[in-house]
């Protein structure tokens, strides 16, 4: 690279590159559609890409379970009780001879539905309420705050016991319970972010144009609050899957005949199985951890990709 410092210097490599960029910008070629920029940033984050692959894989395998395994997850086979992994039964069999690989696949359907579904639904409720009340303040804010406190001060396990006693043990009840106990955290997060963001001058500028409250708070302010909310969703997905596992383990979650990751782990209550039959609880434990990990990576990736100040 030859740089001469007189005024009529020749264009060097960097100058030419800059000219090229400038020409492209003038031609409008650099104004990528937002979606493209987002995807590029997300995929260039290796952990996020890894998370996405693992996540997709687990979801696909769960959804396509009937095609991937010849067994019925509820079929009892008393001749093959607690068999270690073989070519016939990849993950072995459980106490009543059901194929564990099949149960893990089918269990994924329910567990992912419960985990991701509850996390997303409670996030939607929390964000809708938190953004609006946090922005407008006043009695609406106070009311929402008190209501969320009531829900959050209730111990989850008691609420579950109560609702299971009243409504019976079912999948939809479990999801409702998770939403009821879970929306408060995200609501508070969204509200807290709103309280500080609403004082920014760009918000006042939007107000000075007379834009409506929903447009200001959901369209313009919310994207700035999305980072921590996204992380919180992924964390609560993990927490809900584990909570489902925990409640099913106690026999309070999904009815025991429906395979879920939690119900499969349930048998590890038995000390003999814990000590002698590792294949019953280890594979499903690994799958849960992988899934939770991949969701967390995706959340981190989403947060970074939505932040325009981070170059991708």
């Amino acid at each position, binding site marked *: 690279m030859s740089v001469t410092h007189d005024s009529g210097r020749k264009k060097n490599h960097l100058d030419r590159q800059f000219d090229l960029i400038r020409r492209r910008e003038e031609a409008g070629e650099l104004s990528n559609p937002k979606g493209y920029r987002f995807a590029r940033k997300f995929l260039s984050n290796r952990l996020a890409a890894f998370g996405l692959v693992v996540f997709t894989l687990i979801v696909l395998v769960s959804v396509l379970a009937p095609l991937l395994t010849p067994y019925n997850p509820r079929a009892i086979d008393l001749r093959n009780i607690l068999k270690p992994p073989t070519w016939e039964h990849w993950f072995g069999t459980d106490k009543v001879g059901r194929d564990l690989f099949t149960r893990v696949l089918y269990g994924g359907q329910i567990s992912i539905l419960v985990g991701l579904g509850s996390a997303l639904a409670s996030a939607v409720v929390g964000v809708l309420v938190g953004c609006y009340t946090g922005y407008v303040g006043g009695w609406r804010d106070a009311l929402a705050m008190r209501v969320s406190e009531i829900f959050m001060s209730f111990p989850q396990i008691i609420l579950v016991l109560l609702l299971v006693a009243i409504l019976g043990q079912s999948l939809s009840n479990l999801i409702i319970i998770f939403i009821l106990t879970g929306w408060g955290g995200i609501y508070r997060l969204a509200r807290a972010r709103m309280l500080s963001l609403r004082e920014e001058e760009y918000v006042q500028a939007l107000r*000075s144009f007379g834009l409506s409250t929903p447009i200001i708070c959901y369209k313009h302010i919310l994207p700035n609050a999305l980072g921590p909310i996204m992380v919180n969703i992924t964390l609560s997905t993990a927490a809900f899957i584990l909570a489902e596992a925990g409640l099913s383990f106690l026999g309070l979650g999904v009815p025991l005949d429906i395979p879920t990751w939690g119900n499969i782990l349930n048998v590890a209550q038995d000390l003999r199985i814990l000590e002698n039959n590792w294949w019953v609880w280890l594979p499903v434990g690994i799958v849960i951890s992988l899934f939770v990990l991949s969701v967390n990576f995706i959340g981190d990736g989403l947060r970074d990709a939505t932040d325009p100040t981070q170059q991708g």
Partner: protein
Amino acid sequence: MQQNKDVILKLRDLKAHFPVKAGVFKRTVGHVKAVDGVDLDIYRGEVLGVVGESGCGKTTLGKAILRLVESSEGQVIYCSDDEQRDLTTLDNEGMVPYRKKLQIVFQDPHSSLNPAFTIFGSLEDPLKKYGVKSRAERRKIIGDLLEAVNMRPEYMDRYPHEFSGGQRQRIGIARALSIGPELIVCDEAVSALDVSIQAQVLQLLMKLKQEKNLTYVFITHDLSVTEYICDRIAVMYLGRVVELCDSEELYNHTLHPYTRALLSAVPVADLDKQTDRIVLEGDVPSPVNPPSGCPFHPRCQSAIERCKTDVPKLKRYEVDGRDHFASCHLVDLPEAV
């Protein structure tokens, strides 16, 4: 501006009080009187400077004009050819046609643009609201606006963090211009910029004023800026206007002792020039509990007995045939003028 008496905005006894709550039951124990009875006429096409030290209510006044802060009393009357309308009585729907006429440029270029949106994304919603339906048209308008503030139209697809402070401030100006306002409140619009950029932005503001026939309410604490651009200057102290006159008048025939102190504090780049600094003692009194009588009397060097009891009104004087408003008892004394 003497000959042109076409008023665009009248403020009548405008007050913005904020309750102070204390104790377990959140009882209102007092009010912060941020703006405490301001009367002003703003003429079409002028630059009205509003000056005063920190906490005197300048910004609150600007925001009360746009109803970004709700005023607690008084009127903001918008005057056009065929009607006069008190903006404080309108609801949000009713405000919409007037939102188009009044705009604001903010102080802090770092928080005045939404970091999550491109410039186009930030500026397009107001246009949408005011009836520009097609996206191509909005892009065209925003491109033209950016050119008007000496920036390249392609910049509309960039994010705020990719711009410098001066550039952002110019984008803020472009945003205020986007719906064709008549009056722009510049709330410390250049205070956060360094001096060379300040001059650049001020020149831009003046150029735009000429081109688009704008009126500015220029809120600042920088008296050298007001001298440069303002036609008239209102000096505020503790939520009130204490002196109001043409800007040369203010510098040549200062009537209010507070204004005199302010002017003496303007730094002059001349080593030989000895100025008599009037150093004010103490702080601005609390706007929750303003002093009796003239709000300035505890710090005024020439206060007389009457200042402690009577609140001076903003009175009209005539100096060299020009209007000059001041609220000070001393001006009425025979030896003062």
